[in-house]
């Protein structure tokens, strides 16, 4: 059977455009998988080099395999293009699905890389063979390979600057899948093929185009907001510690920290959070603080606020995760935010479990700043129990004051008051307060003291040293309007941890 061939001296400019698209999309898939790998598995250097290596190797396999394709090359070319559209286009959503569903992520990841690499590797030799009778070899190789490399350059420029920030990984991979499908469709118009074959291929193109478009629509609507936020701004730093995934993102204006996908602060408005966390507590203490215990707060932002008081001689900061404190001691963007607080000689950073620290320590502090992540699991939930607050009391000096970050009284009203109730059951006097932080919503804290505790009337620091809080604003912080006012709430005990369930229920409404 005679093979359909391209006419002599026929090099349609569209064909060359196709080469460029194939090359670009190939590299984009590689970057998408590399990004996902380093995001999920941490250690981006290893992940990127593994993905790149595997990908290039798979392209080699593809090139080798191309010699086994003998007949109907035009048809094969379109089919491979369609496979690539499907595999590459769905790679990001698929990997995300696997990531949330199972531990098989690594396998899926490397599988996708090899598959896409092999398909791309098949394309270029095939194209050269298709065109070999049309132009002379040296011209042909030069043009195709040039376009191939130009495509790579386009991809590597577009990906970090435009695609990732604007589209995110999902949409990027799907978009290029659609592009590949479009190329395949275009080919059915350019190539001299049988009618029947043309019809079949076009039907396939439409089908795959439809699938990709549907997923694109679905992803745009439903992908977890937090994940989109991740990829909405370029990731500056990621680390996977034994405890959590640490991600710092940076857009031109804003730096954000995420732990396990939960926003910890945004540089736009973190001053509101941290000024309210620290300064009312110092004011309530009613004397100059000398020693302070900070539990959590590995970003050093609370420490930054504390260091504004010259009376403070010593801050002991306990944060479980060295991945966080190391980042906030060294990264320029972090130092810009916390002013190098963690490197200050008055600050001692210890990476250990706060509960364990309280059990073992015999030290005593004027002030305790308790700034843990929200009680979204049982391990963190332990740090919100009556037993924990009992231990905390033993670490405070006479008339010492503690302040506890207590999630949002607006989104998690019962959770907030459970924390208040639990502190009180452990013998603390409390003064709850809250502040509106645009990135988070209305946010709550609890001032707690062993002895009488009054809401402070004035700050103990010159307002010019602060960015947001002023003395006249203090009473407002302690006023709880009716819709976030006190509700009856249980004590959060170690052997029950009602707070974890309450918290999940209350926040579930907003994150689902």
């Amino acid at each position, binding site marked *: 059977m005679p093979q359909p061939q391209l006419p002599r001296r026929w090099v349609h400019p569209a064909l060359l455009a196709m080469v460029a698209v194939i090359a670009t999309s190939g590299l984009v898939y590689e970057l998408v998988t590399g990004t996902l790998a380093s995001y999920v598995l941490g250690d981006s250097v290893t992940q990127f080099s593994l993905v790149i290596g595997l990908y290039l190797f798979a392209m080699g396999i593809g090139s080798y395999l191309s010699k086994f394709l003998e007949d109907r090359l035009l048809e094969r070319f379109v089919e491979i293009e369609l496979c690539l559209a499907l595999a590459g286009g769905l790679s990001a959503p698929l990997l995300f699905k696997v990531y949330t569903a199972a531990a098989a992520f690594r396998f899926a990841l490397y599988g996708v890389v090899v598959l896409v690499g092999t398909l791309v590797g098949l394309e270029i030799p095939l194209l050269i063979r298709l065109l070999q009778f049309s132009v002379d070899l040296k011209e042909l190789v030069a043009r195709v390979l040039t376009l191939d490399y130009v495509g790579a350059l386009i991809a590597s420029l577009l990906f970090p600057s435009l695609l990732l920030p604007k589209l995110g990984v999902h949409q990027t991979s799907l978009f290029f899948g659609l592009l590949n499908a479009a190329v395949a469709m275009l080919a059915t118009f350019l190539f001299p093929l049988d009618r029947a074959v043309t019809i079949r291929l076009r039907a396939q193109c439409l089908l795959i185009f439809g699938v990709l478009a549907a997923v694109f629509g679905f992803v745009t609507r439903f992908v977890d907001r937090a994940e989109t936020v991740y990829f909405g701004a370029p990731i500056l730093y990621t680390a996977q510690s034994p405890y959590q995934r640490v991600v710092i993102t940076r857009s031109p204006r804003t730096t954000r920290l995420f732990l396990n996908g939960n926003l910890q602060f945004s540089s736009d408005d973190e001053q509101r959070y941290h000024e309210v966390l620290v300064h009312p507590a110092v004011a309530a203490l009613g004397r100059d603080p000398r020693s302070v215990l900070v539990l959590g707060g590995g970003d050093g932002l609370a420490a930054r606020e504390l260091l504004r008081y010259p009376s403070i001689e010593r801050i002991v900061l306990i944060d479980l995760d060295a991945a966080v404190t190391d980042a906030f001691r060294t990264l320029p963007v972090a130092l810009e935010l916390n002013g190098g607080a963690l490197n200050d000689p008055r600050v001692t950073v210890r990476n250990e479990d706060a509960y364990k620290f309280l059990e073992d320590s015999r030290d005593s502090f004027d002030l305790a700043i308790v700034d843990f992540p929200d009680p979204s699991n049982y391990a963190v939930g332990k740090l919100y129990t009556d037993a924990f607050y009992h231990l905390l009391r033993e670490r405070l000096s006479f008339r010492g004051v503690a302040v506890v970050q207590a999630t949002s009284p607006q989104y998690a009203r019962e959770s907030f008051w459970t924390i208040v109730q639990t502190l009180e059951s452990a013998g603390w006097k409390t003064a709850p307060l809250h502040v509106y932080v645009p990135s988070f919503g209305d946010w709550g804290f609890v001032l707690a003291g062993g002895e009488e505790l009054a809401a402070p009337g004035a700050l103990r620091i010159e307002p010019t040293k602060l960015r947001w809080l002023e003395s006249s604003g203090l009473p407002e912080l302690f006023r709880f309007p009716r819709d976030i006012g006190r509700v009856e709430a249980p004590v959060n005990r170690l*052997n*029950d941890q009602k707070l974890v369930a309450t918290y999940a229920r209350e926040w579930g409404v907003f994150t689902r």
Partner: protein
Amino acid sequence: MDRRAFLTTVAAGWMVDTILPGKAPIAGRIIGASHGVGHLVRDGGAPTPSGPPDRADVVIVGAGIAGLSAAWRLAPAGLDVRVLELEQFLGGTSTWGDDGAAPHPWGAHYLAAPNPEARAALRLLEQMGVVKGWDAAGRPRFDPRVLCHAPQERIFYRGAWHPGLVPQDELDAHDRAEMERFSRFEDELTERVGADGKPVFQIPLAFSSRDPDTLALDRISMRAWLDREGYTSPFLRWYVRYACLDDFGAEPEEVSAWAALHYFAGRKLKTPELDGSHFLVWPEGNGKLVQALSERARATVTHGALVTGLVAIEGGRVEVRWLDVRDRAPRRTHARAVVVAAPAFVTRRLFPSAAARLPTRTSSPWIVANMHVERPIDPDMAWDSVLYDAAGLGYVDARHQLTELSARTVLTYYRAYGGPDVVGARKGLVVAPWEQIANDVLRDLAPAHPELREQITRMDVCVWGHAMPRPRPGFLGEQPFEPLVLLDERVAWAHADQPGMALFEESQASGVRAAEALAPALGIALGSTWL
């Protein structure tokens, strides 16, 4: 087991066997109870001792909970108390291990918050600082750190983990209805009092009502009771079976209905603090209680001492004959009184004249496997993980009560051999090589943990040939709640076999009772009873 569960089990078992052999094999060994030496008593292989005897005021045979409790009770009297213990470790079936990422149990792993009637247990807990004080109603207040932290348990049911032991949302209507019915009955039974004004079930069990209506439950098996009451739900039946195996190491057909219902309705303490878990849990399990008893006991313990016989001699003394298992040398110790704190079958051989009066107990064999693992931290990990319809009872996490998160921990797996053929099961286990037991454990856990083999660095196994008495129908005997304590004037018996139910409170009460019963023979006053 439904088809899907069956297929996952098969598939997972296949993976364990075929995919993973390439992995470096995990290390491990069989440790524990010295079957070989112990059988010397049975086979009469012990020579008669010669040479001069040691002397002591009291000899206690066995350093289990019962023996150590007897020593603890005697401590205020300031006597010379000598404990002879066969094994190299303390605590008998409540012993523990200290190696690895956390201390871990080798047997008993929790103590439910004791009823006010378990006065000896509360006294010890108060000495340990676990009971922090008493509320206005006279109920104990516990150190919250010792109560099992949430989440206490989770169940692997139809391919996924669910919180708690009962996956409420997964059950079908029939299962749910019967579980509700049973739970209502359980609540009612917990409150019920007999004609004599005592609660129908109490711990220690000797304080239970003697009302013949409830004692009649001891004549039938739990299985027969379920049939009689028309309980047919597969989940409920599994649930009851799980409880029988967990507490008594026996299938429902092997357990007295009185005993099984006692398990469900024996706990009376209700305070707001116990709203969540009412289990007292330490990383090393009840090994913590063993340490607490032995620290306060003021007795010398000789390990590797196999007691082979007791003989009354002149001068109001008892000769305790024993074998030093290291050099197989026969020894003897003369004492003014002896507590035999060993199982009934051992006591019968040591003191044949009391043989006929001692109860006959069937004891279940168990295996306990300690798996040293390293794996990703799960912040929502439960203390107790149970697999529905598995062969074993699941596992507990030794690090659960430690607040510090760690990727390394020790998981303690339990399996009871609950069928009627205890002798066959015991023989099979004693000769089984480590590889076989380890493989069985992995296979049993594979549906939930196909990856476990890769996470285990070491798995040690303990085979308890005679782990605990089985409260079979009729175990309360002709005269319920009147335990045999004094075998003669100077020899008392204490052990879980005495009540016939292996619980910390029972063994402890048994040891205290034995010590108090010997006071006249010793010519001492021990003050008012601790019971």
